[in-house]
């Protein structure tokens, strides 16, 4: 299964969940590589929103 399909499937499952804070919409702002493939971005998105990527909170008051 392509990552695009996997991401859509996961997103549909999120929307259908009964959790109050489930994800209903995803938007991407792509990187600087214009040749970057869709599946590469989909994979990154899926890994990010499912918590497979290392993520740390950002203190926006310092920006």
């Amino acid at each position: 299964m392509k990552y695009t399909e996997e991401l859509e499937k996961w997103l549909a499952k999120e929307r259908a969940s009964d959790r109050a804070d489930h994800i209903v919409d995803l938007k991407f702002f792509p990187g600087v590589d214009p040749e970057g493939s869709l599946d590469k971005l989909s994979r990154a998105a899926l890994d990010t929103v499912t918590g497979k990527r290392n993520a740390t909170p950002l203190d926006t008051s310092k920006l």
Partner: protein
Amino acid sequence: MTMLSTYSLEEAIVVARDTYVKISRPRRPVPIDPILRYAEKVESAARGQPYSIKTMIVDVEKNEYRGIFARGLSSSTIYLSHELNDCWKRFVICKEAIHLLVDDSDLRYAKSVRDQTMEAFQMFWPTQSRAPLTSEVFASVVAFEILYPWESRRAISKPPEDMHQEAVDFKIPEHHLDAYFRCTFGILSEEINSGILVP
């Protein structure tokens, strides 16, 4: 906040001016936190329950993405690439907060993931004031107009001699500043902004 049926450059600039007035002007650079808190306040009022926005830095592979906006019913999360400098972080956060402010329903723009992504890849600066924009371009224009506000721009008669310093002063991506002064977008933006009578 204005809920939009169509997206155009004119509408983007009106939304930017409206939002800018409601946050802490006239500081330079425009702070990001008030924009996030304003978006939370509007969303909380619309939903009748507390709403929060989290911002996370993510380890991404080179150039994978700049930002991802995961919108939920009681909270949203903005994921930013660790590769971004502070100017780009500010821009992407502001842009994603704008999505929350102007998209009028949870699923309205939830086209297929493929369509959303291809929209984002087609990012460009608009060349007509009334031409329809994709939501990605619309949010980008609003973010730029807030972070490089007309209030500060109106006295500028020509491009700054030191574009890099101007970008540093306002903490906005130099690439966008350059595009503003070199592309049709800048001309249209000036025309529209100078014709708007609100603050």
